[in-house]
């Protein structure tokens, strides 16, 4: 199920744009404007970026036979863009950030955890102190600080056309760095017990190097635990990205993410907006939320399934 969501969010936006004949940044005045609240799901609107003139204080009715286009989820807010394409595209940015964050966290956390759990001593003390300190402070505040004050220089890094929007890599790296403490701790705790096992002693006795013991004797034991952690962490990273959008510290505003879609209706922490019936429909909250929900639920199922499959002793 998660694989389906992944594929849909990576390729769905472009496919939908091709099929429907417009993309996520096209603005349709007839879908929403200052006198008309956004249209609901499955509505056909005139496929024009201009209006057909004004009449009676509003937009004039389109002439007969004007070409129309289909908005599957309706319009996204006062601008009148296609909510469907934006939700699907938003999944792309959100999932890229989430998965990238997990990857970066693993790249940092695995070596650190190995060093501290396997070799112990001074390195272990240092790593433990640092993780304890960082865990004592809310992650969100770190991220807000870093993404606001460092982002300007980091944002253009790694942008790659429409596949990886600008700012995604920077946010993934930031999230990854500040969440790398969880895999570090997990790996360390596991290695501390595994280190005492007899098979490690046996491997040492036959002259295996530290690298060989870690790579071929210990890593296989860590893998199930890390995969399960990765599934859960992807879910939390998605939610973290939503939070950053509400602070206004996320990716570029024009890049849709699930968080930024929600914050068009509800505002940011500077300007919270109480739901305004004349400007928004409930659909703009429902669709991104359902998308997040599906994703998190499927990741939860995935992690439960992996746990059962990979940890013979049952885990929980």
């Amino acid at each position, binding site marked *: 199920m998660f694989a389906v969501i992944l594929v849909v969010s990576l390729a769905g936006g472009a496919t939908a744009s091709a099929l429907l004949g417009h993309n996520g940044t096209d603005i349709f005045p007839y879908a929403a404007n200052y006198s008309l609240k956004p249209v609901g799901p499955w509505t056909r609107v005139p496929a024009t970026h201009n209006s057909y003139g004004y009449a009676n204080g509003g937009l004039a009715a389109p002439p007969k036979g004007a070409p129309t286009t289909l908005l599957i989820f309706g319009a996204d807010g006062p601008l009148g863009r296609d909510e469907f394409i934006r939700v699907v595209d938003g999944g792309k940015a959100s999932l890229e950030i989430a998965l990238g964050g997990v990857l970066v966290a693993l790249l940092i956390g695995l070596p650190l955890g190995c060093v501290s759990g396997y070799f112990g001593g001074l390195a272990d003390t240092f790593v433990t102190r640092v993780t304890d300190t960082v865990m*004592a402070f809310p992650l969100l505040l770190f991220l807000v600080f870093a993404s606001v004050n460092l982002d300007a220089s980091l944002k253009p890094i790694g942008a790659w056309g429409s596949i990886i929007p600008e700012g995604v890599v920077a946010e993934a790296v930031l999230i990854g760095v500040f969440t790398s403490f969880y895999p570090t701790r997990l790996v360390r705790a596991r290695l501390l017990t595994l280190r005492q096992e007899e098979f490690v002693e046996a491997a040492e006795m036959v002259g295996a190097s530290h690298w060989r013991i870690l790579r071929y004797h210990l890593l296989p034991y860590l893998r199930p635990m890390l995969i399960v952690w990765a599934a859960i962490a992807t879910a939390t990273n998605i939610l973290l990205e939503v939070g950053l959008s509400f602070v206004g510290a996320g990716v570029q505003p024009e890049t849709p993410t699930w968080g930024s879609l929600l914050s068009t209706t509800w505002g940011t922490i500077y300007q919270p907006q*109480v739901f305004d019936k004349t400007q928004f429909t409930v659909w703009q909250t429902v669709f991104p939320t359902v998308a997040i929900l599906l994703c998190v639920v499927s990741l939860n199922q995935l992690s439960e399934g992996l746990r059962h499959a990979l940890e013979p002793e049952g885990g929980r």
Partner: protein
Amino acid sequence: MRIVFFVARRAVAGLITVWALVTFAFWVFWAIPNEPAQFVYPGQKMNAYHIRMGDHILGIDKPKTTLYFDYLWRMLHWNFSPSWGSYQFLPGLPRNLHPQGVQVQLMQELGVTLSITLGGAFLVLLLAIPLGAIAGSRLRSLSDRTISLVALIGVCTHPMVIALILRGIFGDHLHWVPATGYCPLRGTSFGNGCNGPVDWASHLILPWASFTLLFLALYIRMVRTSVAETLPQDFVRTARAKGASSVRVLTRHVLPNASLRILTMIGMEIGTAIAVCAYIETAFQMEGLGLAGIQAMLGLDLPLILGVVTFISLVVVIGNLIVDALYAFIDPRVRFSTDPGRTKSLAGGVI
């Protein structure tokens, strides 16, 4: 006696944590390019004189190490430096010559945040324990699935969205409770007609509800897992065999086992809860610590950042100290272990 040592050791470790965070914040701050003088002359065009004068007014025209120990010294005396924003100098207006230290503002905000988090945490436990017990004792049943799904929806909807929906329905539309604002528990402020605990609670009902909806899922899951793990054990069968009713088995024999896990989790989530409060505080227009934290991180006001870092880490450290003491009190087996094997839960990210 040994428990005193245990707590004392933890307290020292906690203080080191606070110190490390403050130090980290201080030096990272100076590594970022910024222009503090703009706090003194907001929105004005500055020349070299303005910058030097501004730095002098803010008291930062000293070596950074001196400044660092200066800040630490004031912190130790609970007399924080005033925020840079309070030195603001606008043409034609008198300058605030003796601004208050940030601790005055932050103490008030701490009251707001603690009201939300403590009340919310109480509600979470009140609901999560029975619901989790129901779900855990009927694994994979309809009620289990329903409870889990509803709780998951709470997690996946952003706290700010939940808070604004609740405010829109019950505050702005139905007028059942005040939509915005905060009433202090003690003392009356005449402007908004706040008076005592009743007003305090009525202003806080919606924030508590939002807080609960967010954290409920995790605790339900936790209780559910714990109950499901404990039920097949031998002592539960013994209790059943001697004729205890199923309610008694649950409340007396099974649920106490969940209490340790819940406690561990609460200890880890204190910081998260404060940050999450930022969204709830925004939605209900309360001036709280979470919001202050985010605003401090967004602006480049060093004394405010250091104050917020100190406050939040102190709250986390003290909260963890209480949790550790309770932990040792409830379960003698873990009394002297230094590491209860903690890992962060799913809530780590919501924030």
